[in-house]
């Protein structure tokens, strides 16, 4: 769980797809249909002609030739900056702080995730249905504007023993969540995932009784 902007991902993927799909179809079509190939050549040479006209409208000193020529490096650089921004928008939001209380008089109190993770580990000691657990925290959306009002959210992953009833593990998780709430002193948003990870495969199967 993180702060990836999923709507943005889908929109940008759709735009890229919509640019590539017709281009590919057109290229393949031009090879198969001679009329389309002719059309291709006329349209592209027409465009090149118009570009030369455009260059002539804003003449510049010699190495440049025309002010419009600056657009040629500017557009790809703009595209490069946009891709870097898109790349950096993936993931993020992980935090090591499970809860934060700010008080003007008493000062700030922060609870580390590792403290809660150790408590969960302790509570699961000797449990037959669960072979492993992990606890992480992330900050939700909107934390940049009002950092005070968004407390971190928790993600508890429990790896069920192979064949253990997920409902049994879920009931256990509800108990752990109320334990976490009791430790923190307030209700927190917890995402519980009951999984079957690598440790599930290594551990022996759940035995009746």
């Amino acid at each position, binding site marked *: 769980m993180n702060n*990836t902007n*999923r709507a943005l*991902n*889908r929109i*940008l*993927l*759709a735009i890229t*797809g*919509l*640019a*590539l*799909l*017709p*281009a*590919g*179809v*057109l*290229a393949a*079509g*031009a*090879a198969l249909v001679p009329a389309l*190939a002719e059309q*291709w*050549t006329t349209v*592209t040479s027409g*465009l*090149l002609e118009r*570009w030369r006209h455009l260059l002539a409208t804003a003449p510049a000193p010699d*190495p*440049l030739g025309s002010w419009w020529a*600056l657009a*040629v*490096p500017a557009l*790809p650089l703009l*595209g490069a900056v946009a*891709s870097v921004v*898109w*790349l950096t928008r*993936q993931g993020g939001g992980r935090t090591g702080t499970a809860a934060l209380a700010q008080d003007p008089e008493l000062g700030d109190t922060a609870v580390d995730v590792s403290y809660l993770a150790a408590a969960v580990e302790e509570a699961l000691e000797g449990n037959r249905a669960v072979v492993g657990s992990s606890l992480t925290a992330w900050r*939700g959306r909107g934390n940049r504007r009002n950092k005070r009002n968004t407390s971190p*959210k928790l993600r508890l992953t429990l790896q*069920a023993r*192979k*064949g*253990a009833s*997920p*409902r049994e593990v*879920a009931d256990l*998780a*509800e108990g752990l969540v109320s334990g976490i709430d009791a430790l923190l002193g307030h209700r927190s*948003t*917890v*995402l*519980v*995932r*009951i*999984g*079957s990870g690598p440790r599930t495969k290594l551990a022996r*199967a*759940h035995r009746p009784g």
Partner: protein
Amino acid sequence: MNQARTNRRIIRRETHSSRAGLSALTAVLVLAACLWLGTESILSLLGQPAMLASPGMTASLIARVPEAVTPAGMVAGGAAVALAGAVLLLAAVTGGRRGRRAMHSDGSALVVDDEAIAAAISRRVRLAANLAPEQVATAVTRNRALVSVRPTSGITVDPEALTAAATDEVAALRLRKALAPHVRIATKGAVGR
């Protein structure tokens, strides 16, 4: 702050792909293309020799592509580009469901892996029919749990009892969306069990 709405939102995010991997790949490719084009155009502005082809050469090449490239190459290249575009478009439009689903819960957002559900159903059916672990396999699809049972040779199993066991296990899970179990018993039995 509405807790139920927050829970619904994080369950949705946990059970569906963020498309981060494909986005990162696309962004890297676009970045590489843009950097190459940018470098070439700056080189040509400075009057330096091009690395591969100057923007002018690239433009005139694109204009002459139907004559310069063989039809077979054109079709193959065009199909590859169109396919990549279709994959990106599909990834943008389709749901991207991961093999997990939501369970009912009082306060927290509860998500369970399909694999864990399959293992639990298999175990329950196996105990109901008194079979060895490798005789029962379960696959969980979008809204069905397909249980395939390979009975021991010479011993009949009651399909209704097994269906009841599977249905019971699914009902106990209290999933947010129904999952219908289907038990299929193989006609060939396992020998020596």
